[in-house]
């Protein structure tokens, strides 16, 4: 592909960010930055990018494979201009300071010239041992490869395993294999660093009790993913390693190597294993056989993410996955059958049971590897006690070294959505060390002026890809070329191999210029993925982008007709004829563009809204903050201390001051949203302020919803009716305001999951377990003699919160489990509160007297408000009334409607620190969108021929978007800025007065002519 003076395009070396690590987090951060017109260098020590996620089979909770969703909106040009990828590269040294770093990088030899490699795979076929290649994704779904040549399509030679390099060179038709290649050291100027290196997975073979690495049928969670994966060792068939037979009984053992006290264990919780075990068990049932027995041995089921509790409930209730609360001591293999027996004890039954399983999956978690520790040293960042990157208490992506940001698992164990959020947050922080958003005039026009082709004779260029084997393996491209060559007006017809590769694109461009081509037909893959790429190609040679016709020879022909090459060839020819005939009628069209409003509307003035607003305002965006209360601050105003002991009051007060003082922020308190209209990039929202209800409209390009959630206060356990029954939030205040009262208490009982995880509110409130630990530890600090009982269902102190749980246990806080069937009861005996709970271990009810009953009530969605906003903004909600993001896994802060973003507790319950991370992420995402400056509405809009229009009102009635109206001149008018291009009016207009541009009648008819025409 042609490169646009790459060096010139960069304003200065300080507009560049170095992203280390090419997993989903690193990719997300790099794409966000590139989209915001920041230069990015993405390096990865592996020979390909993709990281851990590409090795997974399916991902929870949607059970889809959908890496494609990562970047649907990134235009190819932004990618090419701003994003550079260097695989097999590591950082050696970083000197300087934020905004002005110099990084030393070392790139290992690949022995393949990436510019020449077409990714055909011939070398890997002939020399599988010496050629490294991981397709990563399901090979039967090549559409998953979003960046065929840029990833890069990932071949590398392992020189140690090569006997004679010239033998391999012979099989490469592209001459891409290099006999000599050496490691190179480069030095680059960067403004900031995003560290997204993930972590390693624990290797259970160091444990002697579970037989990991010893027994064939004991596998790790990731190995199980590979077994189920279509690209895995058994081609997607679920079989046992020992005898290749389908297992009937599978067990998962949770927390292997995590949450432990033994030598090989780590003490923290790996955060993701509960969900992946549930997912693997569900997928096992869904994909393979309903009757496979699945059992999960667990300590606490930690399904604390958004809607994860419901996933857990489905696993139990719909898929009948058996849950046993126990951490088995060991696994013993039957040497004859290779079956595995597990001995376990049930909580309510002290005797041991032994059960046999065909397969056991060890749910292993994350470990920091030595190379990561080494890299941290080179970067000069501090690590926490578990060797993960140490970050700021109120900013989870900020490391100890200014200008170096971290995202993903290397910050703390987390799943994909949280990694994506942190990646966008890190990108947003990294951008703030660069000069603020480029001025309009610095945004260079990429393309030359368009040539006027209206008076030119038709000259059609036909270029047919073979797409490696995908097209070329079924139909003979050269035969096709011979066929189409003879079509009238065809000036050039060529086979171009991988048409989308750098070399082929350059060849097509040269041919167009050489022959004066003015219409182009590409025979290749789907226009859905590649149309923009070829449209950009036309623009580069001075042709209008609508003069190209994409013929989908692959998805619509060679894939479905793989087994019928003869018919496929005939159909390919027909399809090309349709394209050639149709392209004759293609006319240059002008895209309708509107200048994008550079304002942002932030709804909600809590910590989240304020953080987003500040971040955007610092980048020169004008921000309106709408808060319905009389002052900024939100729910955080009622929180005093975080679990780390940080003072929330001070933090909020400081934030409010910064926001109020910022010249780019307009704060509107006592204000509510009352109406909304417009298109993404050009919204108009009506705001009403104060008791006198002053109304004003705000123009904005993006909208950030940060309206938060409500502190739940269910009428349970005497809350609101009995004295000394309070919530954790009230205890938090009491601990600050009345320590004497705390000192006077002898016994304190806490009840978890009050108003959460039940019928009315099925999800987990996520924050309450850590709140209980926080308050229990503070009580113990003030009053070490106090007896504290925590009555819980599952303790969900995910990640490093586990440290606080352990500390509480060590200090003698007692934990008593209850279930929904045995809910504790609160009684008042002689004016003393008493809680009655069933103790599963003792097997009987016990009464605990308490001076104070603290209920962990968590958060609940503000149904009335989210409903009202959802109606006004046309946004979807979850069943429990939070906003529903576009994609729970990969686009966790973007709404499906472009220009809308959600952050904080309006997304789902979360801690202050997590809310801030999301706030930073949406600021980054919003910036990326605003970076475009223009809204391209496309050219495919309905156009009315005023001579033919009879003002019959049919279009007015059928338009699903209410766009057409009869204007003062008495004919139908369709505003191209509002038209969605659906074509309904064009189809229904009885007078044929409406044409949908680029799908006009004569164009469709020309295509039909092509279909029925016989040329030779």
């Amino acid at each position, binding site marked *: 592909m042609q490169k646009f003076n790459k060096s010139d395009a960069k304003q200065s070396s300080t507009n560049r960010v170095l992203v280390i690590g090419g997993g989903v987090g690193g990719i997300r951060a790099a794409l966000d930055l590139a989209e915001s017109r920041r230069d990015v260098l993405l390096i990865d020590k592996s020979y390909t990018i993709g990281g851990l996620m590409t090795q997974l089979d399916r991902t929870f909770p949607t059970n889809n494979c959908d890496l494609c969703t990562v970047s649907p909106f990134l235009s190819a040009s932004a990618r090419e201009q701003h994003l550079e990828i260097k695989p097999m590269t590591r950082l050696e040294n970083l000197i300087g300071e934020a905004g002005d770093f110099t990084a030393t990088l070392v790139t290992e030899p690949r022995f393949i010239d990436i510019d020449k490699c077409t990714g055909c795979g011939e070398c890997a076929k002939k020399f599988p041992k010496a050629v490294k290649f991981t397709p990563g994704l399901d090979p039967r779904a090549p559409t998953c490869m979003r960046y065929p040549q840029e990833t890069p399509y990932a071949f590398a030679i392992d020189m140690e395993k090569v006997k004679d390099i010239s033998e391999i060179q012979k099989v490469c038709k592209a001459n891409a294999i290099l006999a000599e290649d050496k490691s190179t050291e480069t030095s680059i100027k960067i403004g900031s660093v995003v560290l997204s290196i993930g972590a390693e997975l624990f290797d259970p073979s160091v444990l002697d009790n579970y037989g990991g690495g010893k027994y064939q049928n004991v596998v790790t969670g990731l190995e199980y993913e590979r077994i189920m994966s279509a690209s895995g060792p058994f081609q997607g068939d679920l079989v046992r390693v020992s005898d290749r037979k389908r297992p009937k009984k599978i067990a998962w053992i949770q927390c292997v190597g995590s949450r432990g006290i033994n030598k090989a264990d780590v003490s923290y919780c790996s955060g993701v294993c509960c969900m992946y075990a549930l997912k693997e068990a569900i997928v096992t049932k869904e994909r393979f056989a309903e009757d496979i027995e699945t059992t999960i041995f667990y300590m606490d089921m930690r399904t604390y993410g958004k809607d994860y509790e419901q996933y857990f409930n489905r696993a139990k209730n719909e898929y009948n996955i058996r849950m046993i609360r126990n951490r088995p001591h060991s696994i013993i293999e039957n040497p004859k059958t290779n079956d595995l027996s597990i001995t376990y004890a049930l909580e309510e039954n002290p005797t041991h049971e032994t059960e046999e399983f065909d397969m056991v999956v060890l749910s292993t978690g994350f470990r920091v590897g030595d190379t990561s520790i080494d890299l941290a040293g080179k970067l000069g960042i501090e690590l926490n006690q578990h060797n993960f990157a140490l970050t700021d208490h109120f900013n989870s992506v900020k490391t100890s070294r200014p200008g170096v940001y971290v995202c993903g698992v290397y910050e703390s164990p987390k799943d994909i959505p949280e990694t994506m959020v942190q990646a966008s947050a890190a990108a947003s922080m990294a951008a703030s060390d660069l000069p603020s958003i480029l001025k309009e005039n610095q945004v260079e026009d990429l393309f030359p002026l368009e040539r006027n082709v209206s008076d030119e004779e038709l000259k059609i260029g036909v270029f047919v890809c073979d797409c490696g084997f995908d097209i070329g393996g079924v139909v003979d491209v050269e035969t096709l070329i011979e066929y189409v060559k003879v079509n009238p007006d065809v000036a050039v017809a060529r086979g171009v191999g991988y048409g989308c590769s750098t070399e082929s694109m350059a060849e097509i461009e040269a041919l167009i210029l050489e022959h004066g081509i003015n219409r182009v037909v590409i025979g290749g893959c789907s226009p859905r993925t590649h149309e923009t790429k070829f449209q950009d190609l036309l623009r580069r040679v001075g042709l209008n982008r609508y003069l190209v016709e994409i013929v989908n020879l692959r998805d619509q022909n060679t894939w479905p007709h793989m087994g019928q090459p003869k018919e496929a060839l005939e159909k390919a020819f027909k399809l090309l004829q349709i394209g050639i005939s149709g392209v004759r009628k293609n006319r240059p069209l002008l895209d309708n563009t509107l200048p994008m409003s550079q304002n942002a509307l932030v709804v909600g003035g809590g910590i989240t809204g304020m953080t987003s607003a500040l971040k955007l305002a610092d980048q020169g965006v004008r921000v309106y903050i709408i808060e*319905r209360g009389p002052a900024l601050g939100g729910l955080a105003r009622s929180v005093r201390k975080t679990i780390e002991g940080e003072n929330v009051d001070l933090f909020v007060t400081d934030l409010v001051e910064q926001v109020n003082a910022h010249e780019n922020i307009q704060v509107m308190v*006592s204000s*509510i*949203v*009352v*109406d909304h209209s417009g298109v993404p990039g050009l919204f108009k929202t*009506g705001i*009403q*302020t*104060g*008791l*006198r*209800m*002053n*109304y*004003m*409209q705000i123009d904005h390009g993006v909208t950030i919803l940060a309206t938060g959630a409500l502190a739940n206060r269910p009428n349970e356990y005497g809350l609101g009716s009995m004295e000394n029954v309070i919530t954790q939030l009230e205890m938090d205040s009491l601990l600050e305001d009345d320590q004497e009262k705390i000192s006077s208490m002898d016994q304190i009982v806490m009840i978890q999951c009050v108003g959460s995880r039940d019928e009315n509110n099925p999800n987990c409130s996520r924050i309450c377990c850590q709140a209980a630990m926080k308050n229990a530890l503070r009580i113990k600090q003030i009053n070490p003699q106090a007896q504290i009982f925590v009555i819980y269902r599952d303790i969900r102190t995910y990640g490093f919160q586990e440290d606080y749980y352990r500390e509480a246990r060590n200090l003698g806080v007692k934990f008593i489990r209850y279930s929904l069937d045995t809910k504790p009861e609160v009684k008042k005996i002689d004016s003393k509160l008493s809680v009655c709970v069933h103790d599963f271990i003792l097997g009987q009810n016990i009464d605990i007297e308490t001076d104070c009953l603290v209920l962990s009530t968590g958060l609940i969605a503000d149904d*009335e*408000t989210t*409903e*009202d*906003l959802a*109606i*006004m903004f046309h946004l979807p909600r979850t069943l429990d009334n939070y906003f529903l993001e576009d994609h729970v896994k990969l686009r966790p802060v973007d709404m499906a409607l472009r220009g809308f973003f959600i952050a904080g507790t309006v997304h789902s319950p979360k801690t202050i620190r997590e809310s801030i991370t999301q706030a930073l992420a949406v600021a980054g995402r919003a910036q990326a969108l605003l970076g475009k400056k223009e809204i391209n509405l496309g050219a495919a809009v309905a156009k009315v021929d005023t001579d033919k229009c009879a003002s019959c009102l049919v279009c007015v009635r059928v338009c699903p978007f209410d766009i057409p109206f009869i204007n003062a001149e008495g004919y139908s008018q369709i505003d191209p800025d509002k038209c969605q291009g659906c074509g309904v009016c064009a189809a229904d207009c009885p007078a044929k007065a409406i044409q949908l541009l680029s799908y006009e009648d004569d164009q469709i008819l020309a295509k039909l002519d092509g279909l029925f025409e016989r040329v030779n």
Partner: protein
Amino acid sequence: MSFQAKLSSGGFAVLAEMHTPKGVDISELITNVRYLKSRVDGIVIPDMDNGVMHMSALAGGALLRQQGIDPLIHVYGRDRNRMALQGDLLAAHVLGIHNLLVVQGEDMINGDHQDATLVDDLDEIGLLEMIQSLTQGQDLAGFELKGNPELIAGCAIPPIADDAQLKKEVESARGKVDAGAKYIMLPAVFDTDFYTLMIEAFKSLNVPVIASVFLLKNVGMARYISINDPNSRLSEDVIRRIRKSKNREVECINIAGEMIRTIKEVSQGIKISALGWEDRLPVILDSAGL
């Protein structure tokens, strides 16, 4: 029919409220006015309402007059001293503006010019007396005017919490009527029973009583008012009604329409505010059967 003619004929006066733009683009105002021309007896133009700087009500009133609609403009003492006020009122007369509504200057707390100097030269009684004096041909310094302006002023009543306050406000209004107020404008209340009670109480002053209704726009707004303005007596039932409705905007318009129908039975006039949604005023009138 003009507002005054309607009141003196004993008919039911229909007023709509419209704001001048913050800027000089008057197209929206003029468009909305045109749709109402044949349907209302006058249009009320607030001045710097809520402490937010707008085009002056004087210019707004003149524009309405050009469109052939009888204007009523707000008069208040917060931003102008007696010199400026008197000058503006003489100007009002020559621009064809004869209806005034004397109001209290809003607190600047939600205003957009919070650093503005507050004048407060005259209070509401002072303003009414000043207007009376001008119409009698004398300015506040006792000098004679060359040509007397014809001005009719009404007074506004603040929100009322309970019966005790109602009594107090009636007495306070009596003072305003004595100072020259020719009609009374009541605040908006969502409880029609209480509204009837209010109207009956103020009728004892023997001047026409005009009620006020404003358009709720969504649940968020209704909730805001119910929490922050208990005197508006907006009940949970109203909020529930909007929430349950399939088309909330239509439901809000119907609520306003129903209010107007009920109040029409007891008051001499109604002022309808759409608070930025002036393009919906015609459908509110439709819904009220006006």
